[in-house]
């Protein structure tokens, strides 16, 4: 084994510092990546050109294109429209619900970012959980794990796989095709779902309601009186003459309904009025809430309940305004803050209706509840305002909503350009990033998504995380550090069969993905694994693939974004993830190694 030289020591120190910063998270991981990108050329470990080549890499271009294509599909409502039919298929049985949603989520996350797919179904799962009295903890973990597993079904399903071909390029290895990983990914998804169906009762956390059987066929929201809708009420001419001033906030506090608009003659009109606004005499008030609560309000406050919308017939139609459910995203700036602190009503002019957390729906005083990751906010407002909020990016909008700019007529184009990209990859074998960028560009040209929206959709944190870490992989290889570590590991484990070596590599990748990010783990381990494979006669592509796949084996700790998103709503503790995650991780490794052995004859 060669002796360490200064460059190798510097690379090892850089890796150690990076791993340390990834674990303690004193600095955001994308900033750590940029730090590395700058530090490496300064230390002379890579050339300035190499330091920034990550930004122009196929991986970064591919991930940008995937995000734009995903945003395009989202804009047309294609993906959102899956929710209702899937729930219909799912029916009332826990196993069917888990299977139907998991398969769909896995399918979506094989082409979109996992977190988006996971967030898409969250409000729907909450409704199903409540309706059928199935604890959220029984549903969310299997579905969340499926979202992660779904990322292994195509080469663009998750960042590590997107990165794989780039990292292999410096070794002149043949790149993988878009669907080369599909059989393995599909087997992983299938085994994951089966595992929860068969072993769910032992590995998922127990709850007090475990004994309660799901209410098959129950339709909790069928009662017309409890289904919320918009009603129009009028205050009498002498409304304020004989009572103390009543504000919009008072009505909410007293009746748990929401004033969404007020029209005062002759021509004053306000949508999403602030809670401090007084309700005057002779005005029309648009109120959103269940009918029984509205009737109680009308009776106790002496308001006239109109049989149908009159004044608001235009303002509050489905074309102009509506209700959406939005999930607080894992890295959202809303986390830990209250709607009141954020001056949410005033800033966005939308009305928060309810807040869903775990299996509870909160109606009272939600403005003072510190928000958590995974909280589901039900919001009412004009599509324009909701769109503005949506663009802020702090909330993931998940309902099949009629947001103003939802371009249903562009769904054909969106589908067409996705197909074009796939055909270019599969039939013409053109470089992946070129195909995907063609699809993204096609969507922009055919106005599925505007160029500004496309820029806005790109998650720059992921882009810089990838771009910043790519030079570290290069430095590890270039300085001989990867070979040095690989030889050390091989000497440590002694002579071994290829299948065991794949297992060891996958185990290392699993460990690293839990403590540092999956991208970081991929960048560090791919050169290492390829060197180990070369030294022991294993196909280096298989070693790289093992890393690319096993970095999605992130179930034991809630560090993966999807797990972080579902932790709050599912009411999970870290120990819950450890319990189910260990089983899932072992299963993942066994299925992955077995499938690789079967498919590639290792």
């Amino acid at each position, binding site marked *: 084994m060669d002796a360490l030289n200064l460059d190798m020591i510097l690379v090892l120190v850089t890796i150690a510092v990076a791993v340390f910063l990834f674990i303690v998270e004193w600095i955001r991981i994308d900033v750590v990546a940029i730090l590395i990108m700058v530090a490496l050329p300064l230390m002379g470990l890579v050339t300035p050109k190499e330091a920034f080549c990550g930004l122009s890499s196929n991986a970064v271009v591919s991930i940008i294109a995937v995000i734009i294509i995903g945003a395009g599909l989202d804009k047309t409502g294609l993906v959102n429209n899956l929710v209702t039919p899937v729930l219909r298929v799912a029916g009332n049985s826990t196993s069917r619900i888990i299977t139907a949603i998991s398969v769909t989520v896995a399918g979506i996350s094989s082409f979109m970012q996992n977190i988006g797919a996971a967030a898409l179904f969250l409000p729907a799962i909450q409704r199903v959980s409540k309706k059928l009295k199935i604890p959220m903890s029984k549903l969310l973990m299997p579905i969340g794990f499926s979202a992660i597993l779904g990322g292994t079904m195509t080469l663009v399903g998750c960042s590590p796989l997107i990165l794989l071909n780039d990292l292999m390029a410096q070794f002149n290895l043949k790149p993988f095709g878009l669907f080369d990983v599909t059989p393995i990914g599909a087997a992983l998804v299938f085994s994951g779902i089966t595992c929860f169906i068969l072993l769910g009762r032992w590995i998922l956390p127990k709850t*007090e309601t475990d004994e309660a059987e799901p209410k098959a066929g129950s339709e909790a929201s069928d009662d017309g009186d409890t289904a919320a809708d918009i009603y129009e009420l009028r205050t009498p001419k002498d409304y304020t003459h004989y*009572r*103390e001033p009543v504000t919009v906030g008072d009505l909410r*506090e*007293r*009746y*748990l309904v929401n004033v969404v608009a007020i029209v005062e003659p002759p021509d004053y009109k306000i949508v999403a009025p602030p809670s401090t606004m007084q309700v005057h005499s002779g005005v029309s008030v648009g109120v959103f809430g269940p009918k029984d609560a509205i009737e109680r309000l009308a009776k106790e406050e002496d308001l006239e309940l109109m049989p149908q919308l009159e004044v608001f017939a235009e303002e509050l139609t489905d074309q102009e305004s509506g209700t959406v459910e939005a999930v607080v995203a894992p890295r959202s700036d809303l986390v830990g803050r209250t709607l009141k602190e954020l001056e949410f009503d005033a800033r966005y002019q939308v009305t928060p209706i309810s807040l869903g957390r*775990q299996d*509870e729906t*909160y*109606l*009272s*005083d939600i403005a*003072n*509840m*510190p928000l958590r990751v995974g909280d589901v906010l039900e919001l009412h407002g004009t599509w324009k305002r909701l769109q503005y909020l949506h663009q802020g990016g702090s909330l993931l909008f998940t309902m099949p909503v009629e947001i103003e700019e939802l371009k249903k007529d562009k769904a054909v184009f969106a589908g067409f350009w996705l197909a074009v990209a796939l055909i270019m990859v599969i039939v013409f074998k053109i470089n992946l990033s070129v195909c995907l960028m063609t699809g993204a560009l096609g969507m922009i040209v055919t106005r599925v998504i505007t160029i500004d929206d496309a820029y806005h959709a790109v998650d720059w944190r992921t882009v810089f995380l990838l771009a910043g870490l790519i030079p570290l992989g290069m430095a590890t290889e270039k300085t001989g550090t990867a070979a040095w570590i690989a030889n050390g590991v091989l000497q440590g484990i002694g002579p071994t069969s290829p299948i065991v070596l794949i297992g060891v590599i996958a185990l290392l990748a699993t460990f690293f993905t839990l403590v540092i990010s999956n991208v970081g783990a991929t960048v560090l381990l791919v050169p290492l694994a390829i060197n180990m494979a070369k030294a022991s006669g294993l196909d280096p592509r298989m070693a790289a693939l093992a890393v690319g796949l096993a970095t999605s084996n992130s179930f034991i700790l809630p560090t993966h974004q999807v797990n972080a998103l579902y932790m709050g709503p599912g*009411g999970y*503790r870290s120990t819950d993830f450890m319990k189910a995650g260990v089983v899932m991780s072992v299963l993942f490794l066994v299925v992955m190694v077995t499938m690789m052995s079967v498919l590639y004859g290792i």
Partner: protein
Amino acid sequence: MTVITISRGSKSMGTAVADQVAETLGYECLSRAVLLEASEQYDIPEIKLAKAMQDAPSILERLGHRKHSYVACVQSALARHVARDDIVYHGYAGHMLLKNVSHVVKVRIVAGMEHRVSIVMHQESLSEADAFHYIQKMDKGRQKWTKSLYGVDPTDVTLYDLVLNVPRFGMEDAADLICRSARLKQFASTPDSKRDMADLVLACEVKAALVEEHPDVAVTSKSGNVLVYSAAGDRHGRKVRSQVESLCQSIDGINNIEVHVGAAAPESAV
């Protein structure tokens, strides 16, 4: 239709003023009777309730939370009683419990130390120095009690609508001033203030039902929409949530009940 709370330092002639006001207005004068009612309703010996209402909880008692539980029961009984209106209450911390109800006149009766010392010397046959220490000890005890339960100093004048130095006015005039204040329109009960009172009664009942199991909860109610704030962590919060429904089943008037875990309770919570 008004409620008058009279807070008093020991030996400040507060009881006599309260009796006079009640007689003049034809109101019920209420003090220790609340303890009896609480004792009957919650099946707790009156002596324990009286002790809880007099002494600030010791460190051990704070750990056990038993005293908080007793205080919640007395508060519930008091709220239910004063909801009937036309009441002069001169027991412990009525002004704190009823601070957010607009038809409550909150009065503080004070007297100079010299005057109070002379009363104690006369009533208890003590020397001047002993009488002085006696009053100081009583005042400190009450301050500590109010501070431990409500986090405020009972001598803070901003807690009251009216502060009267009785020896300066004389008892008759002091009582007359209070009666005139009680007749002012701003202290008359309104539909809103009655609703606030009904909500306070409900919140106190819910708190009393929960406090034994969950001493850290704070409760508000608005038109029967009850909100239970729990400082417990998420896991414990689930337990609170599951128990709240069963513990509050027998309480009438709840329109909706929610448990907010980890959210700060508003100042108006009981």
